[in-house]
């Protein structure tokens, strides 16, 4: 963490306009819908924040769904025996 970011945080919990622009543009570049869809200059900060909440919420939902699915799959499978082949398949 640079000292520059530390001093910008000192004494203020409110986000400044410049900080909004910088951070929101980074968020925007990570969001799949916005990146692939509309023109980036038209998307407002609040919209980006909303999309970010949606994105993270959807990921949490996927974690829950996958946990459910894995709980059924792993009832009979010993994780050790599957580990080697899975790791091999993940090496891209």
């Amino acid at each position, binding site marked *: 963490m640079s000292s520059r970011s530390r001093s910008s*945080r*000192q004494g203020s919990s409110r986000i400044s306009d410049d900080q909004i622009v910088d951070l929101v543009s980074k968020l925007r570049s*990570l969001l799949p819908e916005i990146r692939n869809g509309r023109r980036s200059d038209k998307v407002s900060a*609040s919209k980006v924040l909303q999309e970010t*909440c949606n994105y993270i919420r959807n990921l949490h939902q*996927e974690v829950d769904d996958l946990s459910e699915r894995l709980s059924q799959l792993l009832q009979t499978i010993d994780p050790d025996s599957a580990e080697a082949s899975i*790791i091999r398949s*993940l090496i891209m």
Partner: protein
Amino acid sequence: MMHNPSKVKQKILKKFIMGLRSCNSSHENLSVSERRRIIKLSADLALASVRNGSRRWSRAIIEEASRSPDNKGLVQQMLGSDGDNHLPGPIPWEGRSDRNGAGHVTKSKSVVAASSKKIVKRCRRVRRSNGRAPRRNEAASIAKRLVKKRTQLLKDFVPGGRDMDDVSLIEETLDYMVWLRAQVDVMRALACSLPTTSS
């Protein structure tokens, strides 16, 4: 933000499987819901441990998991081998630890929609009372209020978010989004590679 995604995912997978072993070894007959809970916890802890405590959200996940006595064994097992690496050192500007809650809470879509409607109604009211479009600084303050509102919502989605200032929150979010995505990819890859047939 993530230099070598496949290497990271391998690490997450190794840690994840470490946790999954406890499903099979500790108890003969776990209920489906208990198994699901352990699987999810293993995945979350795998992510947090690979991130290695360098981010608030990863430390928040570990702290929140450690609070429940049911989880102590699993936390120890998954993080114990790396040693106590939760904090790289004292962090002066951080205040009290999070005493509030059990981590991230999913807000229903209706809550978000309702608050959005309220904001739009407020904007329309302002416009009508002036008889013309709001002046530039009014529009700017409305925009600021929207950003503030949405930032508050975001706090519930990022582990440890409730204690963060706005700037930290967005920085943590940027990091968390990418790593959470990796966790999902690992879980999905595992689920897809396991045989589905049962006798």
